[in-house]
């Protein structure tokens, strides 16, 4: 067991640190969370900056350890989050890289890396959430196109996306998992209506997407027709693997800020609060170690993150909620004031046990796939 880095990795870290120190002060001010076009421009601009400096492909081509260092250092330096580039860099991009044709890779991957195009993920539907394979959005072949009708929901960044990685049902008669196809849908096609949904935190982070006979060229299909479920599983395992590395670093920083705030306002004198922080510090230290463990396992065992990701996701989503509950204790009555730091974050943390597979679904995955318990139902 070794927790040290190689000289090359340390050099990568040092170079990155130096570059971040130079470039971050030159960035424009962060846009308001409600101004989506500005957020899009800001997030794409950051990706372009990374691209020009040679860091664009770190999510895809670098070794897991290099990626870990990249995410750790960018977060530590306070660099912008992937934001609107999330689906492109962490879902759709890796899926296309793994399953797309040479032509598809050439068409879609460079604009993602250069910060030119935003992707969104159209998987969930009103009647297909945890039970994603129940999705009903229909697509049928008409000449060189698929014609798509149905509706998607909870689609993050839909308002500003250029492309949507879309799951559709192409064979309603086949067993559920065998009649699904993965399409790249241009968001400016006719027949698409996007209706933003306001989250409990007040901003519009996701949307409903209504599809009325939208024509998608058959050449936009990634993988074979009716093989979309397998293609999707590749994407989801990416999402549950490395997507949260930067967030753990961020949470550890917040924990330190909260402790200092508590010292300033006197609440640190309360041993109950202090001990709670001690426990959270233990938790986030361990989550960081689990991240390193999973990354090492990925490095020795191949590209797709393994089942350690479910263990991580379960523990992390809960820990993040505990963190912001502790923030509320530091704030005292100010915890009810939306203009105070951490209050909005506390609201946002509520989505973590739901998005990307609820905690209940994750537990079932752990029980059935890792522990080998008999399947329920």
């Amino acid at each position, binding site marked *: 067991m070794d927790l040290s880095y190689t000289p090359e990795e340390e050099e990568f870290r040092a170079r990155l640190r130096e570059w971040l120190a130079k470039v971050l002060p030159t960035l424009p001010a962060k846009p308001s969370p409600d101004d989506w076009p500005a957020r899009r421009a800001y997030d794409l601009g950051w990706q372009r900056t990374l691209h020009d400096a040679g860091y664009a492909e770190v999510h895809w081509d670098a070794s897991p350890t290099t990626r870990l260092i990249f995410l750790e250092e960018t977060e530590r330096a306070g660099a912008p989050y992937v934001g609107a580039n999330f689906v492109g860099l962490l879902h759709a991009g890796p899926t296309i890289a793994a399953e797309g044709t040479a032509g598809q890779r050439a068409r879609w991957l460079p604009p993602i890396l250069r910060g030119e195009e935003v992707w969104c993920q159209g998987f969930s539907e009103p009647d297909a959430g945890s039970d994603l394979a129940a999705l009903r959005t229909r697509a049928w072949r008409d000449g060189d196109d698929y014609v798509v009708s149905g509706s998607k929901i909870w689609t993050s960044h839909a308002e500003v996306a250029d492309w949507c990685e879309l799951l559709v049902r192409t064979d309603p008669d086949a067993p559920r998992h065998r009649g699904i196809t993965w399409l790249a849908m241009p968001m400016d096609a006719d027949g698409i209506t996007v209706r933003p949904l306001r989250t409990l935190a007040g901003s519009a982070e996701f949307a409903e997407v209504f599809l009325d006979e939208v024509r998608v060229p058959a050449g936009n299909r990634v993988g074979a027709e009716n093989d979309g479920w397998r293609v999707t599983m590749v994407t989801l395992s990416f999402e549950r693997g490395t997507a949260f590395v930067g967030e753990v670093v961020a949470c550890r920083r917040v924990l330190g800020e909260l402790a200092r705030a508590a010292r300033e306002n006197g609440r640190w004198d309360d041993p109950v609060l202090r001990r709670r922080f001690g426990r959270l510090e233990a938790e986030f230290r361990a989550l960081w170690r689990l991240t390193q463990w999973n990354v090492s396992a990925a490095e020795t065992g191949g590209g797709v993150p393994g089942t350690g990701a479910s263990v991580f996701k379960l523990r992390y989503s809960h820990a993040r909620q505990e963190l912001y509950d502790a923030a509320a204790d530091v704030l005292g009555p100010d915890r009810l004031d939306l203009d105070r730091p951490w209050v909005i974050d506390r609201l946002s943390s509520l989505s973590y046990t739901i998005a990307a597979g609820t905690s209940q679904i994750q*537990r079932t995955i752990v*029980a059935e796939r890792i522990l080998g*318990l008999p399947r329920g139902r």
Partner: protein
Amino acid sequence: MSVRFQLTDDQRALQAGVRELLGRCFGREALRAAVAAPGRLDRALWRALGGAGFFALRLPEAAGGVGLGLPEAVLAFEEAGRALVPGPLIATHLAAAAVPGAATGETVVAAVDGELVEWLAAADRVLGDTAGVAPVRSIDPLTPLHRINGTAPAAGPVRTGPMSTDPVAVLLTAAEQLGTAARVCELAVQHARTREQFGRPIGAFQAVQHLCADLLVRSEIARVAVYAAAVTADPADIAAARLLADEAAVRGARDCLQVHGGMGFTWEADVHLHLKRAWVRAERGGGSTQSEELLAVRLAG
């Protein structure tokens, strides 16, 4: 080439070797025999452990030791915890350099830890100040206990001993807790697979599945915390490891008990032995309070 935070082949071999050894010297029958003879320390077992290098593991080879490090010690103590090996293992291990005979298993060493001493009567040497010591009826049938200040609540400063001042003692305790955590997870899963109710294995019921999933999640997060602390030997990492390992062992044993139903409440099932030992270990090294405060101080700077 990079962070290799995984067990090496040698470490895996050591883990398997210790498990095999303990399976031979301290299998289920020996465990139940020990439960039936409380307070008796099996000297033959102790010498066997000594002979296998359990106590001399971290002594330099020049001093007749095995010359391995904390990560290897943690793996060995995880196995001991999993097998519920009785005796003052950690005190003897820590005394390997200082107390003659400890390294080989000839001398059994106990040590004061806060207000408690485990295995005082059976030990050849007791480290720390034992004035005013009195036996208590131990909750764990496999760990005889003495209380230092008698049975009255502590007045004045808590006395310390070598067990409560050395962070390595806390780390090795966490390793033992990890062994229990992993073991109770296995026991729960085994039972859930085989016990049938309503015409199917209870492990097909989601409520049971989710108890088992949480058992695994807790033991796996504790595992990385314990292993990382063994690599860094940083007191804050050790404190974190103990908090996660205590939780994984204590809550794990309780959930395992729940999965076993009425069987879990019996003396016959091993679950209670894990729970009781986990409670005893959780008391060591100042308990969770000390670790929480240490981490809080690190945090607030």
